[in-house]
């Protein structure tokens, strides 16, 4: 199977260092180490498991800043075969419309059975890019996958899609775009073998012109459809009140507190 996974480097939440640049209110990507977006790792893991079961390769496609190759190394160490990084100064500050279009332009030239993406990113949280990419490419789109079962011979894929009441079983022809969730399973730690093998794997870089040819109008940060006009820290929470009393007394105080706050 040929599986492409969309991955995005995002600031590492654990570092707590995310911030916006005061000059233009764009995400300051230099401020914190970047890691592969957590949700994309589930997509990647799902892809790797599928190629282990059905044969084939997983390749990565990313649109990111030029420091991204380092972040992609981990994904390669997990077992992806190669990656394409679309990077260009003009793409900094791109909105979701532009991102979806650039990714779609790149993917149009690739052949794959499954295109996998993570549910949303921890740095923008939009979650609208995969749907946009599927629409632009005319691909069947299934989101919130808890299970992905392709039938390569029949050219179809069966997906369990999480629903408010449980899950729906959908069947799409391949190639299809499927959005992964955590329910697909824990991403593997890269093995030492994988880490060492990643040294010889390639990440091809492509500029905006490589991807979009001459049709770069309306793409990139300059064409962003929205802008941040202000940013501030939320008002600090009041100091924590600590109750160490025995359970019954503690419970009385909790209920009084909730009543005070008009929650009950």
């Amino acid at each position, binding site marked *: 199977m040929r599986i492409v996974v969309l991955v995005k480097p995002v600031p590492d939440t654990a570092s707590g260092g995310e911030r916006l640049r005061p000059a233009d209110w764009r995400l300051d990507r230099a401020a914190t180490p970047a890691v592969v977006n957590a949700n994309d790792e589930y997509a990647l893991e799902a892809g790797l498991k599928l190629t282990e079961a059905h044969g084939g390769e997983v390749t990565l496609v990313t649109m990111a800043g030029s420091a991204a*190759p*380092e972040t992609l*190394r*981990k994904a390669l*160490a997990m077992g992806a075969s190669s990656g394409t990084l679309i990077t260009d100064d003009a793409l900094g500050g791109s909105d979701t419309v532009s991102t979806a279009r650039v990714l779609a332009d790149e993917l149009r030239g690739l052949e794959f059975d499954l295109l996998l993406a993570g549910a949303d990113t921890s740095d923008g949280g939009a979650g609208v890019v995969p749907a946009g990419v599927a629409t632009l490419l005319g691909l069947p789109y299934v989101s919130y996958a808890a299970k992905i079962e392709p039938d390569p011979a029949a050219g179809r894929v069966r997906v369990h899609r999480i629903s408010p009441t449980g899950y729906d079983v959908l069947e799409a022809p391949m190639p299809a775009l499927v959005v992964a969730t955590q329910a697909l399973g824990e991403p593997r*730690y*890269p*093995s*030492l*073998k994988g*880490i*060492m093998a*990643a*040294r010889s794997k390639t990440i091809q870089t492509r500029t905006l012109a490589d991807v979009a040819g001459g049709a770069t109008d309306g793409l990139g940060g300059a064409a962003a459809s929205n802008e941040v006009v202000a940013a501030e820290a939320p008002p600090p929470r009041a100091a924590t009140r600590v109750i160490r009393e025995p359970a019954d007394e503690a419970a009385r105080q909790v209920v009084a507190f909730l009543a005070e706050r008009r929650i009950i």
Partner: protein
Amino acid sequence: MATATPTYRLTEDQAALRDAVRILADEQIAPRAAEIDRTAEFPWDVKELLASHDVLALPFPEAHGGLGGDLLTVCVAIEQISRVCATSGLILAVQELASLPLLLAGTEEQQARWLPDLAAGRTLVAFALTEAEAGSDVAAARTRARRDAATGDWLIDGSKRFISQGSVADLLTVFAVTAEDDDTPRRQRLSCFIVEKDAPGFAVERIEHKMGIRGSPTAELSFRGVRVPDANRIGEVGQGFELAMRTFERSRPGIAAQAVGIAQGALEVAAGYARDRKQFGRPIAEFQMIGAMLADMDAQTEAARQLLYKACAEIEAGAPDAGRWSAMCKLVAGDTAMRVTTDAVQVLGGYGYVDEFPVERMMRDAKITQLYEGTQQIQRLVIARALTGSR
């Protein structure tokens, strides 16, 4: 001649590898460390873990099933494991050390014969050079290998002392005197052989009871007419001493890595303790005398680490003064580990002296890094000679 200056940072894969080994060490080896020390039993489970995760494959060439890690990569792994358990870190360090003669001077056939199992961690190898009367004075070894003219085999007689993992190894890299007469120059008297543990005449006489690295069996080995074919000779006859010296160039950084790891582990315990322990109404970390100690411990450990990394880069690049780099990093790291672990015990006060906390074990473990693989005094000799040219 000058190429772009590489930045003083680990490459992506070295950093990824460091993180991967750290996770393995923290999750699966750290919980065993105290028990390994207490029971003084060789941790076969840890060895299996390192083998199955391909950690033991790091020092070996890809052509023979290894991961082709450079010296710095191997040292990063040793450091991460030693952070939680010096005995466990030594498993990788010894596997590298004792394989080096084979890697440096073995024939194609010899390498193909032994390296795959070593890389897979199916077999362990130990380095049998030291003797009761030949510690620092390597050339004074008395274990003899006599040629059987009829068959071309060698017969080895003698004994070795203080051989790390000598009782659990499947293979021994043995250095024996092959010089026929006393006129042969000291440095050409020895040759190197691979002896398999079930060779008749080979025996483990005793295991030492040690101050530290107690889970690593340190053995006295005896050879009584042990017969090895000439095909087991590594390198030329009389090349043994030179091979040993070339080996140390690459293996001393491994011990330095163990020492840096021990220091780092002790530092982390001490810093964590100082943050949590409250006296006089405040965490003791807020007291300047404690803070100063921790600061010195951190700075010294980092300095030892950076010297180690630089030494690895220089040695790997074939620097002509590799011996100097190797001796320096081992010298500084060993002394640092001793100092940092001693201070770690001090920071913990009474709690540092009892086995409720690991720092007393780390201090006992640290001492060996000033003794083996060449004592600190030998390292200083090497450095001084490189500096002044005096003999």
